[in-house]
């Protein structure tokens, strides 16, 4: 099981916890992630808001690098995943985009390099049955709200990730860890992350609404697969408390951190110290399972 791995810029900054836990989990499971040499920014939301051709070209440059390696490209950041999938979709469906990209990149690209999110690899390639056998610390009793946000599921024509209104991929993985996923209706709502620095009040209120729904469903923690969502829901909790006058205090962790704990990996190897909201509630469950 070998893939061309695209970490994305946030893997070395605001989402080191995501990257470290992904590395630790893949190593523990024998999934080989070979980093794409010289990979470059996918353009993120700034590029597609500015110039569609620039955005598709920036993402396609990495897809061409993955093609040279002859492997599927695996992405763990939902935003990079979204931009790469969108580039593929646009190139396939528009001759003008195909022409422009060939000119901008200096080489043709046909949009055919498969892009996979790491959770798809875990569930579809590695498989839940095999994963279940590797669980040594079942997280029994932990109630988890699986939060997908926007980038994994929309637009469905481009990402093809799962049911866009009621995805269940994360719940399937949570189930394998022994934790219990709660039923709730906020899982594909938007956290407002794109306006995190520009219209912060919108992000604070959107993210607070998501957290309130998760808490009303009885969740002890929220599990995410997107650095934009993680930052909004985790780092902004202090602002929510100031603005809305109520306590939130719920850990927001990556799905790879949750799986890592269940695999018996040390929290230090999974980036838990980088979270802004204390993940004690999650770590206690893991500790209780060991003793």
């Amino acid at each position, binding site marked *: 099981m070998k893939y061309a791995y695209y970490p994305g*810029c946030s893997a070395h900054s605001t989402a080191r916890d995501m990257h470290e836990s992904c590395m630790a989990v893949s190593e523990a499971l024998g999934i080989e992630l070979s980093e794409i040499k010289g990979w*470059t920014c996918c353009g993120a939301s700034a*590029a597609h*808001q*500015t110039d569609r051709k620039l955005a598709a070209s920036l993402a396609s440059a990495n897809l061409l690098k993955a093609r040279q390696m002859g492997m599927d490209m695996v992405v763990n950041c939902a935003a990079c995943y979204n931009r790469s999938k969108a580039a593929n979709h646009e190139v396939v469906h528009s001759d003008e985009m195909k022409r*422009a990209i060939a*000119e901008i*990149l200096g080489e043709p690209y046909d949009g055919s390099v498969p892009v996979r999110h790491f959770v798809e690899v875990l569930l579809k390639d590695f498989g839940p049955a095999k994963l279940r056998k590797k669980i040594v610390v079942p997280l029994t009793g932990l109630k988890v709200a699986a939060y997908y946000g926007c980038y994994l599921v929309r637009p469905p024509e481009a990402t093809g990730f799962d049911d866009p209104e009621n995805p269940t991929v994360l719940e399937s993985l949570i189930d394998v860890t022994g934790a219990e996923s709660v039923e709730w209706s906020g899982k594909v709502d938007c956290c407002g992350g794109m306006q995190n*620095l520009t219209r912060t009040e919108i992000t604070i209120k959107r993210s607070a609404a998501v957290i309130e729904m998760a808490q009303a469903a009885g969740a002890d923690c929220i599990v995410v697969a997107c650095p934009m969502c993680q930052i909004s829901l985790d780092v902004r909790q202090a602002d929510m408390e100031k603005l809305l006058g109520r306590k939130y205090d719920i850990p927001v962790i990556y799905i790879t951190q949750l799986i890592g704990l269940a695999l018996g990996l040390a929290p230090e190897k999974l980036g838990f110290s*980088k979270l802004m909201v204390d993940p004690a509630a999650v770590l206690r469950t893991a500790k209780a399972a060991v003793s």
Partner: protein
Amino acid sequence: MTTRISKQKAPGDLLKIVREKADVDLSTCYQCRKCSVGCPVADRVESPPSEIIRRLQLGAGDELLQTGLIWICLSCETCYARCPNKINFAAVIDALRSIAVEKGVARPQGDAPLFNRLFLDTVRSYGRAYDLKAIVKYKLGTGDMKQDMDKFPSMLKKGKMAILPPSGADKGKVKRIFEKAAQNKGTGR
């Protein structure tokens, strides 16, 4: 709300540019308003998505570039995902954003165009995003030094944000992409 559209106005010019930039066919919209109902920021703007489509169809001019949704939109793409006719309204908003910036009419609250430019500047220089630099320059550019200043020390200390610039990217490739993309703007079709 009521939007008045003058009959004398040269019709369709903005619609034509948006159609080309976004590669969408807005004529299939039958105003079911699923986009507006699903839009998480519709309650904050004077014209929700379905109304912007209608205004474009009726020959709206550059006054539409001042509409609030352009820079409040979260790019969550719920509008596109739920459209029964698969109109990519998120791409319509992106097109309006880029036209607003090109025409120099964009100075929205929060100044997203400034942030986008500074973010892309770091990508152009390093081949990858250097968020700390983009954020500091954005704070200096907007003069908003209060928001978030309490958070940076703990984020940097925890390693929740990188202090040093990124390294290891194929910078030459990215430079070429920016140069050629600038030449390619407005070409084709």
